[in-house]
């Protein structure tokens, strides 16, 4: 059957759907809070039905009917094979590198894929305090593939984050090795509402790989604090089908807790 592509989607919705495409049915994925959870559950309901979720609060392989509000939402253990403890998930699974994909977000993400979710300004006299690491540092340190979802704003993507909460490549290709991280060359993928970037392990820097429909390279440059290199031929992100959008809106986020847009308002 031919795919029925939709024109009636927001860029935020497509950002979530594009991020979900990096998840395969064979992956074990550690869920965090926010849009990453929406992307992961969308993957489970569409192309990756056998994906295995684990959650830091202790839930192991739950089947989530809709996107929970937090990692400790009472729905988080739904149909899980085990509701265990934080140590079991972050210690026994993540720290031992038994998890394939970690989904993270943050206040700032820089060209090396470092994430700041703690402070803006000097930490001794901070301008703004964010929640802090949670499970993110351990996930960024030990998981071989990190997916980051973030709305694309210049101030969010500086040359260097003001505080490394969760390490990317730190300061270059050998940054992680020098720091002593055993997982020294993880894949890092950043999906925004303008584009997709992926880390080049040889340079330790994010490179532009795909653009959202209608977005130009210049538009990405205008809205990014660093200048990502272009990787090969820049492709356009595939638009969602009607069916995918219906699943996202009616099943994954039925109360519109995460995704407000459903019309053309964000399309450029």
């Amino acid at each position, binding site marked *: 059957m031919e795919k029925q592509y939709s024109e009636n989607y927001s860029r935020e919705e497509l950002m979530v759907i594009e991020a979900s495409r990096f998840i395969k049915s064979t992956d074990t994925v550690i869920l965090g809070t926010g849009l990453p959870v929406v992307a992961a559950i969308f993957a489970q309901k569409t192309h990756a039905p056998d994906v295995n979720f684990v959650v830091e609060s202790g839930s192991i392989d739950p089947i989530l009917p809709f996107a929970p509000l937090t990692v400790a939402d009472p729905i988080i253990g739904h149909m899980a094979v085990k509701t265990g403890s934080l140590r079991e998930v972050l210690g026994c699974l993540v720290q031992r590198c038994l998890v394939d994909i970690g989904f993270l977000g943050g206040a700032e993400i820089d060209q090396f894929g470092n994430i700041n979710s703690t402070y803006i300004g000097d930490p001794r*006299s901070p301008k703004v305090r964010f929640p802090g690491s949670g499970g993110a540092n351990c996930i960024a340190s030990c998981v071989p593939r990190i997916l980051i979802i973030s709305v694309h704003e210049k101030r969010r993507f500086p040359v260097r984050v003001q505080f490394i909460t969760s390490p990317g490549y730190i300061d270059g290709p050998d940054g992680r090795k020098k720091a002593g991280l055993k997982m020294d060359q993880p894949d890092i993928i950043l999906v925004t509402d303008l584009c997709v970037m992926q880390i080049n392990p040889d340079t330790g820097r994010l490179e532009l790989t795909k653009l959202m429909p209608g977005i130009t390279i210049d538009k990405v440059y205008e809205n990014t604090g660093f200048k990502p290199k272009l990787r090969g031929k820049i492709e356009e992100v595939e638009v969602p089908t009607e069916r995918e959008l219906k699943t996202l809106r009616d099943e994954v986020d039925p109360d519109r807790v995460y995704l407000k847009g459903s019309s053309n308002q964000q399309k450029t």
Partner: protein
Amino acid sequence: MSKVSKKVKVMTAQEAVKKFVFDGSVIGMGGQNISRCAVALAHEIIKQSKKDLTLTGCNLSIHMDLMVGAGLVKKCESGLGGLGRFGATFQFKRAIEEKRMETEDFDHLTMVSRFLAGEMGIPFIPVRGLLGSDILNYQAASTGKKFEIISNPWNQQERVVLVPAMDPDVTIVHVQKADEIGNVLIQGIANHEPELIRASKTTIVSCEEIVSTNFFRSNSDYTTVPYHYIDAVVEQRFGAYPTATYGYYSFDTDHINYYQQCARAGGEEYRRYMNEYIYECETFDDFLEKCGGIKKVTHLEREMLRLM
């Protein structure tokens, strides 16, 4: 005399806090964001105005924010302070930004590892995370040695971070079931609490219901932690409200949003919340009554049933 006691430990929240929480205590905090926060016990600590507290845990949530907002906390040592989709813990955020409170930041695995070291009576423990992060580059003025990076003695190429054991003076947790000597059942996700409880010098547990010891003796795999680690058992229905207790009731979106609104506004609006919902409530049941009483909690029980 053995420190382990099999005697009856049932008491009121007021008695338990009076007996086990002191000015300057390091308090272990159970619960995670909107689930099983020990709110009734936190209310009691606020009413008894225990000062200069250090709060420690993984995800410090609304019960931490209340204690910070009441001006009782000098330091938080944890993985994170926040309420997930409900937003920041605003009193925590403001106290840090205005430099009224110290924080010692780690990540969740490091904190639970520190409790694991504490519960086993070993002085420190290695973790693989933290390397290369600024979490290691900053520390609170009052913290002594925060960490040490060493080479694995059996493999010199490998580096790990050593962190000190954490054994809080007193831990407050809310659970589903306990018996009168302190055997505890946590249902659903257990977060960092099994390690935290066992690591603590004393633990106050509030529970939805007190069951017979025979409940545990005839189903011993139900025991999350045995009585050895527990010092006080407080029976308090809906003791985690407005956060959820799995199997019993869901979280109250309206009240959490209302609290967030007051906490964000601060000043007079926040003081009004604290007066109306804590200081002017003689008991936690009075607080529940103010929040909508039987009608409200029945609704939250139905919401939980729908999930199960």
